[in-house]
């Protein structure tokens, strides 16, 4: 049986490597396709400037979501398996995840625009955005799993399952509706916040057709831009606060449901 499991793990690793190789092979093709489409858009005069920005933003968002979800799930499994989900890690992740992306965007802006000069390079920017969203993902995954009563975990472990297997075969199937909702909320979060962030940073706007590089203008000392950036951040923090309250209430409801059952 052990040999069978080892073989399966080997196949999984091979599949993962093949997937990564395929992604790297396909990425230049996708980039070329996007470049071709943007050239046509420019040539035909369809939404000049904005159309190109929108297309590049879309590609960046799809790549970011495609990177965030598997990366977060991998880290989540690792933390659970190694039993390192200790209070320090838990509080750090919860703290970082509550910071609106637009605040973290300042750091992103400095890295993308000023230091690493990643402006216009979609793949490195997607990786950077993915890293920024990982704490939020981990926090939500942990919340979804913890919303299940302890009995499920105990029943799984009483059958001799490892922490990892209990998570995969017992907890995740039971928490599927909650995880699905969390996943959709996360994608929505990533899409909304990353779009706002990218526009504010002007990172995808090579031709500078959108005059909304708020961070850059604030950074250069424009008072109106600084005030606007401050108001935007305050609004997003308030929005995050109300979302967190709603999430907490829904979690309490779901706990009641499970307890009743």
């Amino acid at each position, binding site marked *: *049986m052990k040999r069978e*499991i080892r073989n399966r793990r080997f196949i999984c690793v091979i599949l993962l490597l093949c997937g990564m190789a395929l992604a790297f092979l396909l990425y230049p093709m996708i980039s070329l396709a996007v470049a071709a489409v943007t050239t046509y858009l420019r040539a035909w005069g369809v939404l000049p400037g904005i159309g190109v920005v929108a297309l590049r933003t879309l590609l960046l968002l799809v790549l970011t979501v495609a990177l965030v979800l598997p990366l977060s799930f991998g880290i989540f499994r690792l933390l659970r398996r190694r039993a390192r989900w200790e209070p320090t890690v838990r509080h750090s992740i919860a703290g970082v995840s509550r910071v609106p992306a637009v605040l973290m965007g300042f750091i992103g802006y400095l890295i993308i625009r000023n230091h690493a000069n990643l402006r216009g390079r979609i793949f490195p920017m997607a990786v950077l955005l993915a890293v920024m969203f990982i704490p939020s993902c981990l926090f939500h995954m942990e919340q979804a799993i913890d919303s299940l009563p302890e*009995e499920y975990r105990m*029943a*799984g472990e009483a*059958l*001799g399952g490892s922490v990892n*297997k209990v998570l995969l*075969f*017992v907890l995740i199937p039971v928490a599927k509706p909650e995880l699905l909702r969390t996943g959709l909320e996360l994608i929505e979060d990533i899409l909304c916040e990353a779009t706002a962030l990218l526009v504010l940073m002007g990172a995808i706007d090579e031709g500078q057709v959108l005059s909304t590089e708020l961070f850059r203008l604030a950074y250069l000392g424009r008072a109106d831009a600084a005030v606007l950036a401050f108001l935007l951040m305050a609004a997003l923090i308030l929005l995050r606060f109300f979302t967190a309250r709603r999430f907490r209430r829904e979690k309490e409801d779901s706990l009641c449901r499970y307890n009743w059952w």
Partner: protein
Amino acid sequence: MPVQLVVENMNVLLDGKNVLRDVAVTAEAGKILALMGKTGSGKSTFLRVINRMAEQYGAEVSGNITLDGSSIFMMKQAELRKRVGLVFTEPVLFSGTVSQNITAGLKLQGIRKKNELEEAAEETLQRMGYWEDFKDELRSDAHDLTRSQAQVICIARSLCLHPELLLMDEPTRMTDTMTSIRLEEMLFNLKKDCTVVIAVHSPQLAGRIADKTAMMEEGQILEWGKTSDLFFHPKHDHTLSFVSA
């Protein structure tokens, strides 16, 4: 094959409190040992210590606990839990069909072949005498079952792994009368396959099925021995008041 469980000088500390003190008891191979006592006397903790579940939740365990002479602390937790099944008071069903619930333990042990799992589910239900009751419901959603049926499936889930020792924490508290009677019969027939340690709140149940009974109170075993001796010649006043109730 049933094993002998020997517990000597067992002490358990949980959150700085001594929840089990100097516990010593033996469950002979192929026999039923009942742990009797009121709520909070330490019956459930005792069971969770035997399959090393208590350690995971911060309990500090000391003393000798052996299965056929081998210390449970020298065994890998996964291996121990395959040998020692645990059935909880509240039936907890996983997501999926009835059949998937019965074979969840095998799946966690790495067996994935569908026909192997289906055969194991059928064999377990037949061994328990419940095949006729569930043969048409194997593919239906487990959450459609009643609470009593759910408890039967939870017991089947443990038995599917062919444990040598089965620990049961008040398994009939949530079941209806008919199911309780059938489960008692099943436990009686199970003795040839595994040793059973059962925590009970009712002396009647212990009197009907147990070969030996231990009386627990505030984390200690007041007395233990043959069920008939404990019921007809109790040495302790507390035991007398409990069994006469």
